[in-house]
C-alpha cells in the first residue's frame, strides 16, 4: 500500500499546524471544568464512535493519548588508558501522541491506530478497525463477550505535590552530577551512572457505552549505579541505589536523598568486589522489599493472570501452573501469605482510577492465607471463570497498542506488628540477606525460578555478617511461598516496581508496583554463579 493511500500527503507533512490538533490544546489544564474531559477530545471521540456504528460495529472505543518521557543524568568512566574521568551528560525529552480505535464487529475484535489526530483520520482508521474485525470473523473461536460496566464521565489526576517536568533541567543535572561524582571517587569504580526519569501519561477514553474519561498520571524513577572492576582478578561487581519508581512528583526525588546515598553505594560496590563467593547449598533467606518485589511479580503476579491460565499467551509469555480448577482451593503459600491485586493503592505504578476498558479499578484478593482466590481479569475474560464483572486490569502501553490484560499492583500483606527485620535475621543460623534485584528468570508456566540480587550479606548465628558474592537462588513457586515462616510488620512495608514488564504480541510493556515487608524463607536452594 502506498503512502498516499494511507494518509494524505498534507496530513503527513503537516503542511499547516491547523491541520493537526495539537496535543497541548487537547490535554491542557481546563480553566473552569476540572471534573470533565476536554470538549475537543469528546468531539474527536464522538467521530470514532459514530463511524464505528455506521460501519456495523456493535461496540467501539477510542483512546487518544499523549506520553512524555524525560531522561537526564550522567555516565562517568575513565578516558582510554588514562586516569582522567570523562563526565558524559545526557538529556532527552520524548513525546508521543496519537490514537487507537478498538471495535467489535461480527463478534470479533478489530484495532487500528494512527499518529494523525484529525477527525478525518479518526474516521478512516475506525473504518480500518472494522475491516480488521470483520476479516477475523473467518477464524473465530467464539464471539467476544464483554462483562458489563457502568458509564463514567470523569476527569482524574494522579496525586503529586510538585510537577517534575516543571523542575528546571539544570537543577536535575546538578543533583545527579553531584551524586554520580561522589560514587566515582574511588578509582576502582570503573563506571558510575546517575539517572533521573520522569513520565507523564495523558489519556482519554470514549466508549460506545457512553463513558468519557480523561486521566493524567505522573511518575518518577531515579537510579544510581556503580560498577567496580578488579583488573588483576578479572572480575567486576555492581551496586545500585534502587529507589522505588513511583506514581508521584518531584517530592519522591527529594525523599530519595540521592546525594547522601551515593557514598554508601560506592563503598558497597567496593565491598561487593572484595566479597568472598557464597558456599552453595540449602540456606534460609531473608529478602528485603527492594528484592522480594520482583519475586512476587514473577511467581505470583504472572501466574495469576487469567489470559495466561487460559492459553492466550501460550506462544509468547507462556501459560500458568495456576490453572482454573485451582481457583479457590490451591495452597500456593503458607498461611502468612495474603496477596492483593490493587490498582487503587497510593504511589503504585499501575494505579489509575479507570482501566483501558473504562472499568473503575479495585483492590481484590489474589491469595488469602496461602490459598489462591482470584485471577486478574478484564471485561472480555470475566465470564470465562464464571465472574460477572471485570477486576479492572486492562491496559495498553501506547495509543498504538491493543489494550489487554495486564498486571495490577500485586502486594504482599505485612506480618504482625512485633515482627522486625532483626527478629527475622535472629531466627536464622545459616542464611543470606538479599537486597535489590539482579538477574531474574522463570519458566513459561511459573514453576521454576532463579533469582540473583544486587547485594548479599551472610547471616551466621542469627546475625548479619559480611557481604558475599555470586549468589543466586532457585526454587519452585509453591515450595518457595510455602517455606515462608516470617514477614515483618507494617512499619517495614515498602513498595518497589518496574516500568518494563513485557507481555503480548506485539510486545507491550507495563509499569507495575509490588509492596511487601521483609520476609524469611526456609531452606532454599542457593547456587554459586560462575
Amino acid at each position, binding site marked *: *500500500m*502506498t*503512502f498516499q493511500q494511507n494518509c494524505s500527503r498534507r496530513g*503527513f507533512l*503537516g503542511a*499547516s*499546524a491547523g491541520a*493537526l490538533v495539537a*496535543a497541548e490544546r487537547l490535554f491542557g489544564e481546563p480553566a473552569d471544568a476540572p471534573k470533565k474531559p476536554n470538549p475537543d477530545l469528546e468531539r474527536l471521540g464522538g467521530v470514532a464512535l459514530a463511524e464505528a456504528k455506521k460501519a456495523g460495529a456493535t461496540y467501539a472505543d477510542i483512546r487518544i493519548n499523549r506520553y512524555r518521557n524525560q531522561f537526564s543524568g550522567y555516565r562517568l*568512566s575513565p*578516558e*582510554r588508558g588514562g586516569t582522567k574521568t570523562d*563526565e558524559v*551528560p*545526557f*538529556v*532527552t*525529552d520524548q*513525546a508521543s*501522541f496519537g490514537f487507537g480505535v478498538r471495535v467489535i464487529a461480527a463478534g470479533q*475484535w478489530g*484495532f*487500528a*491506530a494512527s*499518529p*494523525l489526530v484529525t477527525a478525518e483520520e479518526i474516521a478512516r482508521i475506525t473504518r*480500518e478497525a472494522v475491516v480488521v474485525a470483520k*476479516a*477475523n470473523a*473467518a*477464524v*473465530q473461536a*467464539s464471539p467476544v463477550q464483554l462483562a458489563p460496566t457502568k458509564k463514567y464521565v470523569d476527569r482524574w489526576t494522579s496525586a503529586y505535590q510538585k510537577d517534575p517536568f516543571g523542575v*528546571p533541567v*539544570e537543577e536535575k*543535572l546538578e543533583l545527579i552530577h553531584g551524586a554520580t561524582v561522589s560514587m566515582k571517587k574511588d578509582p576502582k569504580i*570503573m563506571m558510575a551512572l546517575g539517572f533521573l526519569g520522569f513520565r507523564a501519561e495523558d489519556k482519554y477514553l470514549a466508549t460506545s457505552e457512553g463513558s468519557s474519561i480523561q486521566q493524567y498520571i505522573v511518575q518518577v524513577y531515579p537510579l544510581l549505579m556503580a*560498577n567496580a572492576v578488579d*583488573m588483576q582478578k*578479572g572480575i*567486576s561487581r555492581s551496586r545500585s541505589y534502587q529507589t522505588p519508581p513511583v506514581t508521584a512528583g518531584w517530592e519522591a526525588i527529594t525523599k530519595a536523598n540521592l546525594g547522601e546515598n551515593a557514598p554508601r553505594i560506592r563503598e558497597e560496590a567496593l565491598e561487593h568486589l572484595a566479597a568472598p563467593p557464597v558456599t552453595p547449598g540449602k540456606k534460609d533467606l531473608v529478602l528485603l522489599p527492594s528484592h522480594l518485589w520482583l519475586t512476587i511479580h514473577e511467581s505470583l503476579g504472572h501466574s495469576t493472570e487469567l489470559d495466561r491460565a487460559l*492459553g*492466550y*499467551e*501460550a*506462544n509468547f509469555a507462556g501459560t500458568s*501452573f495456576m490453572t482454573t480448577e485451582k481457583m479457590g482451593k490451591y495452597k500456593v503459600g503458607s498461611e502468612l501469605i495474603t496477596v492483593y491485586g490493587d490498582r487503587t493503592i497510593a504511589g503504585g505504578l499501575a494505579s489509575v482510577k479507570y482501566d483501558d476498558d473504562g472499568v473503575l479499578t479495585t483492590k481484590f484478593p489474589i491469595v488469602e492465607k496461602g490459598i489462591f482466590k482470584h485471577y486478574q481479569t478484564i471485561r472480555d475474560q470475566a465470564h470465562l471463570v464464571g465472574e460477572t464483572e471485570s477486576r479492572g486490569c486492562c491496559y495498553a502501553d501506547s495509543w498504538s497498542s491493543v489494550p489487554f490484560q495486564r498486571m495490577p499492583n500485586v502486594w504482599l500483606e505485612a506480618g504482625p506488628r512485633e515482627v522486625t527485620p532483626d527478629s527475622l535475621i535472629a531466627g536464622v543460623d545459616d542464611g543470606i540477606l538479599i537486597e535489590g534485584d539482579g*538477574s*531474574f*528468570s522463570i*519458566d*513459561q508456566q511459573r*514453576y*521454576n525460578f532463579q533469582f*540473583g540480587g544486587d547485594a548479599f550479606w551472610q547471616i551466621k548465628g542469627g546475625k548479619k555478617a559480611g557481604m558475599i558474592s555470586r549468589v543466586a537462588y*532457585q526454587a519452585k513457586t509453591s515450595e518457595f511461598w510455602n517455606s515462608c515462616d516470617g514477614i515483618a510488620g507494617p512499619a517495614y512495608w515498602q513498595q518497589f516496581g518496574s516500568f518494563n514488564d513485557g507481555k503480548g*504480541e*506485539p510486545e507491550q510493556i507495563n509499569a507495575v508496583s509490588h509492596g511487601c515487608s521483609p520476609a524469611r524463607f526456609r531452606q532454599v*536452594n542457593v547456587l554459586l*554463579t560462575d
Partner: protein
Amino acid sequence: MLSQKDAKNLIDQAIGYSKLPQCQVDVSWTEDAFIRYANNGITTSGYRITQQISIGSVTEDKRQGNAVVTEFSEDALKRGVQQAEDLARISRPNPEDMPALGPQKYLTLSNYDNYTAAARGDAMIPHVKAVIEGAKSGKLTAAGFIQRSANAVAVGNKAGLFGHHTYTDCSLTNTMRTDGGKSSGWASQTSVTLKDVNGEAVARISAEKAARGAGRKRSLEPGKYTVILEAAGVSDLVGFLAGDFGARGAEQGQTFLSKKGGGTHVGEKMFPDYITLRSDPLDTKLATTPWGPSLMPNQRISWIEKGVVKNLYYDRYWALKAGKEPTPAPGNVVLDGQAHTVEELIASVDRGLLITRLYYIRSLQPQTLQLTGLTRDGVFLVEKGQVTDAVNNFRWNESPVRVLQNTKMLGRPGRAQGSETGSSIVPAIVVADFNLASVSDAV
C-alpha cells in the same frame, strides 16, 4: 510509505529551524499489520501507522540535547528543534562528543518486498487458517502470531549527511499444545518477504513436536549433556555474544574479551576453527539498515574468524583515543555453518538432547558471559543417532562463549528467531557438556 523525497523535506525543514552548530535528525515510519490467535481462534489483531522524529542538537562547546516527537507538523518540528536546542544549551559539555559526520556512502540493501508491504488480512489469514486447521486435525490447540511491517528510516545532519532506506519484515510463530496442555511444540518462519512464510509447514513442525510429547514424558535429571540446539536457541546465544564485542567494555575489564591484568583477547584463538561470527548487511534475508547508531555505514565485518577473535567495535570516540579506525556496531549477526542437515546433526550424537528453543535468558556474570534460561516447547532424548523420547524441560546456566568453544558440528545456516535477541542467520549446532542445571516442570 515515507519516500526519500518526503524524508529529505522533513529533515531539511527541521535543520532549517536549527540555530546551533550541529543538528541531526532521525526519522522512522512504520506501517504494520498483525494477527494474534489462541485456542484455535483469532483473538486480537490490528493495523497501525507509527512515526517518530528524533532531533539531536549540539552547541559549539559540545553540549548536547535530544528531543523526540511523533507529530510531523511544521509546528511540532519547530517545537522539537527548539526543545532539543534548549536542552543542549542548559546541559554541560560532553567530553566524548565527536564532530558531526559528513556525507557517507551507504550500501544499497535489498530487503524491501512490495507484496509484504501491502499485505493485510487477506494475505495473512490463510496462514492462520492453515495452522488452526492443522491443529484441529491433530486434536491440538494452536496459539500464535503473524505480522508484517513496512518500514522507512532516514537520517540527515547539518554537515550534509543524508540516508534513506526502506525495508519489510514479517514472521509467523506458532505453539501447538496437546489436550490438557501436557505437551507443547513450537515453530517459526521469519523473512523480509511474506512469500517465504508457509502456515502449513509451521503447523506441521510444531504439531509433530507437540505430538511427540503427548504420551508419557521421560524424566531426566539435571547435568551436563551433549545438546543439539536448534537455530532459534543458537540465535539467542550468539545475539548475547555479539553484544559483547565493544572495545571499551573489553579494555575496561567488563566483558569476556577482557584479559586479566588488562588488555583484550583480540587476535587469540578462543574457538574451534569452524567458528566464524560476523555481520553482513548485504545478506538479503535480514531486515538490516545501511547505518547504525553511530551513522557509520554498516559493513561486512568478522568478529570471530576461524576461531580467532578478529575485531572489536570501536565507536568514533574510542577509536580516536586508541588510534584505530572506527568500526560500526554489529548491524546483524551471522554464524557460519557447515553443510549438515539437522537430521545429520542428530545422527552424529550417541546420547544427547534435541532442544527446540530457549526462554527467559538473563545474565549471571558479565566476565564469563554466563547466562541463565530455560528450554521450551520440545526437548527430546537422542539415543544412537535417533530421537527417542520426549523429556522434561530444564533450567540451564551456561555461557555462549563456552557453547561455541564446545561446539562439535554445525548445520546449514538460515534465518532464525530467538525469544530474546531478535533474528539472525545461524545454523543448528551440536554442543558438548551443555549445563542443564535444574528441572523445570513447565510444559
